[in-house]
């Protein structure tokens, strides 16, 4: 496994995250749900009645801090807006289920392997 460019790193990370979640029993509903005004949500998944909006952050080095810290307040608000839009489109806005906003960190250690951490209910 080797990452060729930044873009691929991100996609690679997302794929890895999806595999991990499916193994955990999550049903992946949407990937890269985009809305022009509100940005994008990496993965929308559901498990046991809980609807999860997951942001995947893949990093090759820890130089610039933990990947989870890259999800700033501004990014969180964007994800909220996008999630609201999704709920609207899915017709769930009048009866909102239990929501969970998660972060999945994918840390790629060169030569050693990959570390994947899932932080549920994190913001």
């Amino acid at each position, binding site marked *: 496994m080797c990452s060729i460019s930044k873009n691929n790193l991100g996609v690679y990370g997302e794929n890895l995250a999806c595999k991990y979640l499916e193994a955990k029993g999550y049903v992946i509903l949407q990937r890269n749900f985009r809305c022009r005004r509100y940005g994008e949500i990496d993965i929308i998944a559901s498990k046991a009645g809980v609807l999860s909006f997951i942001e995947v952050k893949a990093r090759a080095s820890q130089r610039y801090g933990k990947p989870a810290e890259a999800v700033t307040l501004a990014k969180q608000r964007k994800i909220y807006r996008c999630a609201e839009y999704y709920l609207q489109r899915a017709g769930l806005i009048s009866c909102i*289920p*239990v*929501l969970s906003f998660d972060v999945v960190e994918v840390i790629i250690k060169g030569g050693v392997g990959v570390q994947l951490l899932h932080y549920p209910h994190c*913001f």
Partner: protein
Amino acid sequence: MFAQVLGQTTKGIDGEMILVEADVSNGLPNFDLVGLPAMAVRESKERVKAALRNSDYPFPMTKITVNLAPADLRKEGSGLDLPIAIGLLCCARIIKQEKLNGKVFVGELSLDGCIRKVSGVLSMIIDAKRCGAKEIFIPQANAAEGKLIHGIDVYTAATLTEIVEHLLDNKKLIPLPKENIMQNKQRIYHVDFADVKGQLVARRALEIAAAGGHSILMVGAPGCGKTMLARRLVTILPPMTESEALEVTKIYSIVGMLSQTDSIMLERPFRSPHHSVSGSALLGGGSTPRPGEVTLSHNGVLFLDELPEFDRATLEMLRQPLEDGEVSISRVRGNMTFPSRIILVAAANPCPCGFLGDSRHICSCKQRDIDNYRRKISGPLLDRIDMQINLARVEFGDLKNKTAGESSDVIRQRVVKAREIQQRRLEPWGMHCNAQMGRSEVVKYCSLDDKAQAVLEKYFNILNLSARSHDRILKVARTIADLAGCENIQASHIAEAVTLRTSTGR
């Protein structure tokens, strides 16, 4: 999931019950705090979040709405942190709602889950009891105030976890033992009238002021003992009754000036603001009404040293508190009435250099300067001060004199006797001392025989006294008669009252 918890805030000097409602529902994570919270209350959100997390309790990452009812009352202070946290814990189904009924929670939370001290706890406990609550939980640092009110169980806790464990019946807290407020408390004043040498006129005048609650202005050269005497006035006032002591303790609790060791304040307050004090600091105010110096000296003494140096407009504001015994403050954020039944003591120099009328020093002021200086204390304010006396300089002989003057204890006994007479006389009218008498009471209780009447008339005409002076002289004379144990006011009492009022030559 919905929860209701009782909390308290302060309104003026009283507590006010607040119903904290917490609602947790599905939706985008959000925390709304509604119900007109002031800034410190708005910041509760952050404190509650951190305190819950650091106490290892879950903080719901979902839509939270907290309402502070009644919704149109502005909530002040940080004491609502604790009930908000408890409400959220109840919504998270960690605490059951039934466990919270009839209980009031007060406390500020620090980020690690400790409960910090809050101002005004005494008023809150009183109000909680009034509303029928059976138990109240307060910060450990406020424990001293919790021992005073009977009829309600007061629990203290140092951390949020302690309270939750108590509510889950895992580790129960013990309510505070009650103290009998007035028993076994020795009031120790550090000053005594025996310290003052000479100044017999002033001692007599202050005794009368203490007995009848009269205001007094002392005029004298620098260093003749005006401040020293004023400070000792509190030592000859009768001891406070339980309700008076509770009132004073409430006021000091609200402004956060209550010491942690003494539960109840038994010494009458003595306040001596600097003459640069502003109107708001003196009367009370600020954007949310806060008690001022006149309220901080309620049931005690307010001492204005260097009276001519005070801003004239500020002094004019003293009119209402002096006459009505309370001060009404209107601000954008509310109208409040604070009690202010005080004895006003004022001190002044006779002229800018201070030596006018002195037997040894020659006064070095020009007449115009003297007039300007005297004019600073306006007629209307002077008229409202019951007694105005001159203090002579203290001779060396007096200072070296080994025999001490009368001690405060001795003087106080006479004062207490005179006050008892006034209490019996004025209780049906809801008053405590002669100075509070209005026109009708003066007519009823200060009737004079012919001889005394003649003396008063003579002085009235010679000195061109006003009608207000007339009534005030009668009230002071009534106090003098009470001190002497006389049923009726004698001519000698009138004469003394007149000299005490006008000896400064105005």
